[in-house]
């Protein structure tokens, strides 16, 4: 059990970074219940590891590491599997947060495509879109920067191909 002031501090930090935690849950879970479970699991793991955080790395780096580790290693059975890529399908989390216009459509496409990537690729895409430097990505994932660049190029190509398939029905 941590001292109460530490708990207050921790709760405040979780609230500040909740958008990032929701993004992780959205990327790794397909149903609202699974997302809720994962969010809870991440918060518990963060709290368990919090005494060990000594500020050697940025707080966000530490947060990503624990959130992604929890999401990737949990490997629980999901309540619903993703359907094949359909750009007209609106992901549940986006229904909650409306984004009118072109951006919304782009995000829908992006989420639908990301759902079909592997767990590791999802982590890479998320860090890339969050504008994390390759150095920070290396610190979070443990993959050296050269390999990260190669992998990112492959993912870009894969996403491009997926969108083309979905748009023009190419298989």
């Amino acid at each position: 059990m941590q001292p109460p002031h530490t708990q207050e501090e921790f709760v405040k930090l979780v609230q500040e970074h909740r958008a990032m935690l929701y993004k992780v849950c959205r990327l790794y879970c397909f149903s609202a219940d699974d997302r809720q479970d994962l969010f809870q699991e991440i918060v518990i793991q963060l709290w368990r590891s919090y005494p060990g955080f000594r500020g050697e790395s940025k707080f966000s780096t530490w947060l990503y590491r624990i959130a992604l580790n929890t999401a990737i290693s949990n490997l629980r059975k999901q309540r619903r599997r993703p359907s094949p890529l359909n750009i007209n399908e609106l992901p549940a989390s986006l229904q909650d947060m409306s984004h009118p216009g072109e951006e919304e459509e782009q995000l829908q496409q992006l989420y639908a495509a990301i759902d079909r990537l592997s767990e590791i690729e999802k982590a890479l895409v998320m860090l890339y879109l969050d504008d994390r430097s390759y150095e920070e990505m290396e610190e979070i994932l443990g993959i050296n920067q050269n390999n990260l660049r190669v992998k990112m190029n492959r993912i870009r190509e894969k996403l491009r191909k997926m969108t083309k398939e979905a748009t023009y029905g190419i298989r």
Partner: protein
Amino acid sequence: MELDSLKYAWRTLGAKPAPEKSSEQIRALLQRRSKGPVAKMRRNLVGELLLILVTYTPAILFYFLEFDGRLSGISWLFVLLLVILAVYFYRKNQLLKAMQCAEYNICNSLRQQVVTLKRYIRFYVRTGTAMIPIMAILTWLIIRWKFPPLPGSDLFYRISGSPWWQHPLTWLTLLIPVTAGVYFLNVWYVGRLYGQHIRKLQELLREMEEV
């Protein structure tokens, strides 16, 4: 779809207020139990330990107090077994604790989980198998001690000199196939419990390490 062109849309999503969670809701989450696979395994371990204590304690007391203490050897056998099991549970718990390594980078965490889970499985199979001959030998020794061979039987306890079920050869004949059977049963059981999980972890690790 160009990822770079989506960065702006992604950032906009991040800037939008995410569903609010009050301080109380987050505090309530901290009181809940983890549903992670390792946390579940650790809870099962505690459950197993309690079950063993609940079933062994009456047996230990029974053999100590009944029969004027003549069969207290059996109680000591159970106590010895409890000591072995305590070491077994302690080691298992240590290994499971080592698997909860969320602070490492993802590659190291996966590597650590694979190594520890393999070690855990090895330990599970070896101790689970070794327990059978150890228990059988200890039981046999107690039987020999409480029911010594009849006068005239020689060093090798000829079947004619003592009841057939006390003869070491009978025990050995039974022990070898039973131990082998338990070994294969354990291998099958851990494969069923953790096989898929370990394969998935290895697959992720391979993906991270390949260029």
